[in-house]
Each structure stands twice: as structure tokens, then as C-alpha cells.
């Protein structure tokens, strides 16, 4: 998936040294990266913290090299994967033999292009959560708030400091992005 205008603007603001941009960057990307790392480090919380810290610290000093050819989150995941591999090497251990659905090359590529696995997969829950983590900023949150926490659109608007109309629009776009991603993979992966 190509970078969004939001991503490009955010990176420019960060390069300019805007503190608020750093806050937005960290808020949007830390949790997805931590979950990504934690699941690939056998649930080792200390290791996940170490890996994500190293990955983000490296990424924020290389922002100028991000060309926007991939989504910012996808670019950050490459740092994370590198640090995860380095961690396993340092620990002189092999990662557990479990292969996550979203690590399969085909699915990884699909995820990066916001496409998805078939719904029959036993990893559906994991993959759905991966999609939510990779959707543009706030999309995953509003979908969880709406469908899991059962917040009203009014409550979502209040939480994000948006007007009712803007919150409705955000929810519609988030639902559309999720649906497109999910069904694109469903069609692309299943025979």
C-alpha cells in the first residue's frame, strides 16, 4: 500500500522537529509494532519492548530515507522484523516453529497491500487484528469502539474531538477500508 498523504505530512513534520508530530507518530505506531513483535518473540514482553524500542529508535533517525513507496507502517515493520531476527540471533535460539498466517510471504505481501486471507483460516482472528493494526490512523480504533465496545457515533466523535458528521465519515471510510482489504484477499487467496 502506498503512503497516505497523512503519512507524508506526518514524516515531514517530524523531520522538522515538531513535538506534536512525534506524539502522533508514537501513538499511531507503537502499539501495533509492540503486538507485532510480541507475537513473534514467543510472548516475551521484555524482548518485545527491547525490539520495538530499537526498531523505532532506528527508524526515527532515518525518516529522510523513507520515500513513501510503502505505507509508513509497512516501512516500520521492516525495522521491526530486522530487530526481531537480531534478537533471536543474540539469544542464540531459534524462533518457535509456529508460522503465523501473516508471516506467509503471500499473506505478508497481501497485508502490505491491504489485502487479506480467506475467512476460513483458523488464523482469521489474528489476521483481522493485523488488518486493524495496519489500517490508516484511527480506523482500527473506531471499528473496535463501534463493534466491540459498542460506542455510539456520538461517543466516538467525543473521544476523537470530531463533529458527528466527521465521525460518521471516518467510520464509513474505516469500514470500507477493512471490507476492501478483507475481501480482496478472500478472492485472491482462496482457490
Amino acid at each position, binding site marked *: 500500500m502506498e503512503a497516505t498523504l497523512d503519512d507524508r505530512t506526518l514524516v515531514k513534520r517530524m523531520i522538522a522537529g515538531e513535538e506534536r508530530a512525534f506524539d502522533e507518530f508514537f501513538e499511531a505506531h507503537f502499539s501495533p509494532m509492540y503486538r507485532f513483535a510480541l507475537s513473534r518473540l514467543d510472548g516475551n514482553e521484555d524482548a518485545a519492548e527491547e525490539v520495538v524500542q530499537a526498531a523505532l529508535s532506528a527508524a526515527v533517525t532515518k525518516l529522510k530515507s523513507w520515500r513513501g513507496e510503502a505505507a509508513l507502517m509497512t516501512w516500520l515493520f521492516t525495522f521491526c522484523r530486522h530487530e526481531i531476527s537480531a534478537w533471536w540471533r543474540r539469544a542464540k535460539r531459534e524462533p518457535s516453529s509456529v508460522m503465523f498466517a501473516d508471516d506467509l510471504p503471500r499473506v505478508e505481501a497481501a497485508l502490505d497491500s491491504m489485502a487479506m486471507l480467506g475467512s476460513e483460516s483458523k488464523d*482469521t482472528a489474528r489476521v483481522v487484528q493485523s488488518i486493524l493494526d495496519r489500517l490508516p490512523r484511527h480506523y482500527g480504533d473506531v471499528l473496535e469502539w463501534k463493534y466491540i465496545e459498542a460506542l455510539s457515533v456520538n461517543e466516538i466523535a467525543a473521544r476523537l474531538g470530531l463533529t458527528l458528521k466527521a465521525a460518521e465519515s471516518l467510520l464509513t471510510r474505516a469500514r470500507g477500508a477493512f*471490507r476492501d482489504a478483507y475481501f480482496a484477499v478472500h478472492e485472491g487467496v482462496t482457490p
Partner: protein
Amino acid sequence: MSDPNEDDTVARLIRTAGARPAVPSDVAARVRANVHDAWRSDVDTNRKRGRMIWTLPIAATIATAVILGVTNQSVRPPQPWVIAHVERVSGAGSHLHAGDAIEARSTIATDANRASFTLADDTTIRVDEHSRVRFDTPHRIAVDAGAVYIATARSGIRVATPFGIVRDVGTRFEVRVTPDAARVRVRDGVVMVASHRAARGEALNVTAGNVTTERIATWGGDWDWTMDLAPPFAL
């Protein structure tokens, strides 16, 4: 206009998957502080470099006109991210010297020497002979071999070893790494290794997959090496 059936499917999938796990706020706060340090340092470095690019031609012109051939003006490299300084070195032949700056992600290896370091928050780190230590950030070091003794000015420093990460909770402690284990001796305060806790007068022995606790003395010969690097008394 979206299809209501497809919207139902979206809702069902998301409900079935459940909420994504939350990240502990203390973890987020620690990582945020360290990543922010790295980002801010990089931004400041780039600003200085930017100013240098603009001012250098002017400076060069003046220098050329006034003292041709005398100056040896060159562009300074970007400012490194300095996270510690060498405070004291014992033994001869060390490549370290008091006052040396230690950059983030640099590795220190001692042979027959010992060295002590201070961080910006006044935490001191003493490194024993035949040790290998990497200074990652102001809040995190990694000990691959040998021993470090740490007196923290505030809680939060983490010491990564091949056997686990040692977290201090405001304390003085030693971490010694051998090929088979990491041993953490606590002189004051509290230290955590994963969910295992050691308080003053306790040691944790950490091997691959096992942690045991034992009582220890907080003074005596086993601690002598740390005194080798202690600051002299000023009378």
C-alpha cells in the same frame, strides 16, 4: 453506498477477532522516552548540519580573504548522540580516558582494565575487567560478558544479558555474565528479572529457563572490585 450485509460481515469479523491486546502503559512510557531521545537528537543534529551548510561558505570566504592558508576549516561531522562519559579508568593500557564521550550503541570492552561511566542523570556504571558492554540508550545497556556495577540516580535503567533483562527499581546492583548464566547481586533497592524480584542482600542466578534466589552479603571481598573505581574521598 455500502451493502448492509457486508457491513454485518465486518462487524461479525471484528467481534469474533476481539479487541487487540492493550500495551502496558509503563512499557509505552519507557519506550516513548527512549525513542523520543533518539528522534530529538537526530533532529538537533540535522539542524546543526543545516546551519553549517549555510554558514560554511561565508566562513570560508572570510577565512580565505583574511588568513589564506592558515586555517584548516572543514565541515564538522554530525553531532553524535552522547549518552555517557568515562569518569575513571584503572589499570594501564586502556583505550578509554577520563572524559571520553560514549555514543549510543557503542560497545566498550575492557581487558585488564576497569572503567566507570556516568550517565546524564548521574547514574554511575562501573565495568569490571574482561567485560563487554554496549551502551544502547540513556536507559539501557547490554552486558555480553563480564560484570557491571550500577548505582542508579533514578529507577528505570535496564541491563540486557543473554539470559534476560534486569530492571532496576532505584538501586545499587551488580550484573555478572558468564557463558552459562547471569548473576544479579543487589546491594540496595530492588531489581527485577522478568517476574523475579531481588531486594537488598539477595542475588538472582539466571540461566536459560531457570531463576534461583539466594542470600548474599552486601559488603566484603566480592564487592571489592567496585571500590577500585570509586571516587576518592575529598577531605
